[in-house]
């Protein structure tokens, strides 16, 4: 089955065009908006956006593949990001990563079988004074340790 944009998303894509001088410029925001619901960007989605804004799909794809936060494969419901920046390295992010990885039984880049979590590294979250740091979806967690990071994960639906 094709994954299509819903009405709200179509409207968003059209509205975004107004903010910029050329249609390509709206692509990142539109992709991110659609991704919020669908969790990833399929070729169908790109084709549909391409039709709406009259930008070749190859162009949309070249933008989509450049950025870290546009997912070209299905991801889980919750994105767990651990900071692997230099300060978090000094403060021992590896322990955190390992314990999360073990708890979820996945490696970075993978998604749990129940599609609940995807684990990925992220560079410095600008929270180095409260390092180590993890981010789950849009929430930032400071000064995490081995126990607290598991607690946080368990509280997530």
């Amino acid at each position, binding site marked *: 089955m094709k994954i299509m944009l819903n009405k709200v998303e179509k409207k968003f894509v059209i509205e975004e065009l107004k*903010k*910029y*001088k*050329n*249609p*390509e*410029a*709206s*692509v*990142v*925001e539109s*992709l*991110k908006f659609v991704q919020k619901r669908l969790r990833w960007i399929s070729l169908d989605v790109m084709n549909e956006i391409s039709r709406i804004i009259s*930008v070749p799909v190859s*162009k949309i794809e*070249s*933008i989509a593949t*450049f*950025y*870290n*936060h*546009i997912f070209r494969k299905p991801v889980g419901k919750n994105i767990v990001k651990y900071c*692997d*920046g*230099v*300060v978090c*390295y*000094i*403060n021992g992010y590896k322990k955190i990563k390992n314990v999360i990885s073990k708890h979820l039984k996945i490696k970075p880049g993978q998604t749990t079988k129940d599609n609940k979590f995807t684990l990925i590294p*992220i*560079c*410095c*979250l*600008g*929270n*180095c*004074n*409260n*390092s180590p740091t993890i*981010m789950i979806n*849009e929430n*930032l967690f400071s000064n995490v340790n081995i126990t607290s990071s598991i607690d946080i994960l368990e509280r997530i639906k």
Partner: protein
Amino acid sequence: MNNYFHKNEETHPLTWRINNYKESVSIGEYENKRGYLALKFALKNLSPNEVISIVKDSKLKGRGGGGFLTGEKWNLIPKKKNSCEDIYLLCNADEMEPGTYKDRFLMERLPHLLLEGIILSAYAIQASFSYIFLREEYYLSKTLLEKSILEAKKKKYIGKNILNSGFNLEIFIHTGAGRYICGEETALINSLEGKRPNPRTKPPFPSQSGLWNKPTCVNNVETLSNIPAIILNGSKWYKNISKNDDTGTKLMGFSGKVKKPGIWELPFGIKAREILEDYAGGMKDGYYLKAWLPGGSGTGILTESYLDISMDFKSVYLAGSRLGTGISIAIDNEINIVSLLFNIETFFARESCGWCTPCREGLPWSLKILQDLKNKIGKPGDIEMLEKICKNLDVGKTFCAFAPGAVSPLYNAIKYFREEFENGIDFNGPNIKNKIFGIQSNNLNSI
């Protein structure tokens, strides 16, 4: 108590309004503390050119890492001939340099200070549109800025005919999608236009032909946040608050295994040791400082003996590094330098935009060598090869400043901690270099 801790308007133009309860300063609070006064004053009494000359005179340098004089940068923007001509002011809020958290701090705690800075700067260069290019992960900053923009619009600080001055400005927030290179000003422009964010060839410079081929100025969050105070109190005052040639104050700080990691607004010329000891409380018990990075991951590593240098653009440069973002990182005795560099270079290799060969190929290559050294299976010749890579990625060898920044910590690390690199070499292992002359061993997958 050290008097730097007593914040006031004269000594802490950026942070004096910050409250102790860790909340964002609301528009009401901001206005009560002389907020938007500079804007009202400038729109009434100063011409755009006069604003530029005050900022030029203040000698404010860009706080994003480059250190270019802001007033000079504004001066490069051609003067507007007719009112329909578009000029853009872009606020670079794509903070991603590992170890840096100053822009997020400013946006979250003082969103209106940044907005006032943007409006004043836009007025100076006569820009009618401004985009805040914000890092995707800064969700809280986004919410706060969106709210603040609406509040400012209501008060007629943003929009059409601002405070009846005839000046129009729209401010948009554009969030990135996670690429460090978007912080480079021409890559940022490409990204905004929806192109792949590779840096652009200069010339033409953005000031002549930037966003949508129109004159464009890109300024960092901290830079823009300095403008209101300069307009309100004058350039002479601004020059006097610093201890040396670099004028004004700078957000500086320390993180790592220090007692109180954080950032503080400090005058240029303060010693790094003072920041570490007086503000960050020194190293945590049981640790001592082995090395430090003065201003983020892309600045050359320095040893403990450099702690007494003064924190300003020139002194840090003369010490063989860069002030960068000014937010320092303490590296303690438990950290292995080779592993640390492996971490730093992993970041840079991952984030290279891939446009030019030395950077695209050189960084992964350096990673491979560093990994071998880390695993103690390095080969004789590896360190020399790392040095060669550093040279080939140095200033002028690549398209943009990303590559020189990427190798500067490595270059200094080899200089100061060569033994740690040597420890990673297995002298008894096979060394293909002996067999095939002229081919570096790391070129070959297996031996």
